[in-house]
């Protein structure tokens, strides 16, 4: 059996990356605490949304506004980006030559999937406005606009962070700050996928069922 224990959420780099692995413990745990507070934010916005479901003020409801197909494609895109991010971390961890290219390639693919998700989401929200689904229309729509675009905003911020880290890799190579930043962004990236599952299930699948 393995004697070394996991020190933080997300993939542990292990003793092959001793310095980054040591520093990662406090940094990633701290980030994890922040992520959990973010989870409470999303959870309470979801609860608010549920309490607002009947407050349509004679405006359009879920079945008038939502479409399943774009949400389905967005779900697959975000899920796949979680996998490609995992591949980026794995190629960081296991490439003995410490080559930059595999890490950057996986990060680039992840970024493209993340941006595709945000673009599709923006298009959906735009279509919602055209159907009379503005946030001021009803309590239901206010709660919707507080919840779903906030998640898209999180993904956008994560994409921006990814670009910043990629630039640091380009400039400084895979040094310890870059490695620990990649571990923290990984926690955020996978976490945003988990939040999206909750949103899809309650808002879109629940609303269209």
């Amino acid at each position, binding site marked *: 059996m393995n004697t070394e224990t996991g020190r933080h959420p997300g993939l542990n780099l292990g003793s092959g990356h001793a310095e980054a692995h040591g520093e990662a413990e406090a940094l990633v745990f701290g980030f994890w605490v922040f992520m959990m507070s973010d989870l409470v934010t999303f959870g309470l916005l979801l*609860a608010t949304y549920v309490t607002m479901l009947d407050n349509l003020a004679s405006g359009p409801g879920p079945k008038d506004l939502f479409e399943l197909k774009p949400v389905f494609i967005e779900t697959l895109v975000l899920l796949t980006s979680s996998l490609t991010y995992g591949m980026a971390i794995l190629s960081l961890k296991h490439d003995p030559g410490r080559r930059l290219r595999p890490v950057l390639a996986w990060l680039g693919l992840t970024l493209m999937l993340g941006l595709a998700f945000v673009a599709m989401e923006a298009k959906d929200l735009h279509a919602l406005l055209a159907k009379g689904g503005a946030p001021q229309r009803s309590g239901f729509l206010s709660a919707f606009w507080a919840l779903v675009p906030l998640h898209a905003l999180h993904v956008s911020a994560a994409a921006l962070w990814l670009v910043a880290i990629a630039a640091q890799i380009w400039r400084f190579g895979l040094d310890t700050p870059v490695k620990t930043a990649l571990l923290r962004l990984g926690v955020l990236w996978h976490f945003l996928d988990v939040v999206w599952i909750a949103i899809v299930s309650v808002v879109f699948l629940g609303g269209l069922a």
Partner: protein
Amino acid sequence: MTAPVEAEDETGTPDGTPRQELRSYLWGYGLSLLLTLPVFGAVAWDWLPRAALWWAIGAAALAQVAVQFRFFLHIRLKGQAREDLQLILFTALILGMMGGGTIWILHNLDGRMGGP
């Protein structure tokens, strides 16, 4: 999936050998797809009555959250130095109280006010 790490593990990390780690991510991806596709199908083509559909959506969502915590965020039931799991469970408790309480109280209020 939860098989013990082999004794000849040379990487010395809790996530297992490189091959096991790759397999873990692919398992997570595969299980997530398996928990996503049928639910979308059931909603798109009305496979179930409405109440059963809602239960199925909820169950699949909870299962997928557990899958992603396990395979992507590497949260385990044991073998961790930090209290990551306790933090999740505590957050879930807070969320259950505040989120569940919000829905309960406002639904109750709605009923008393003769809402829609």
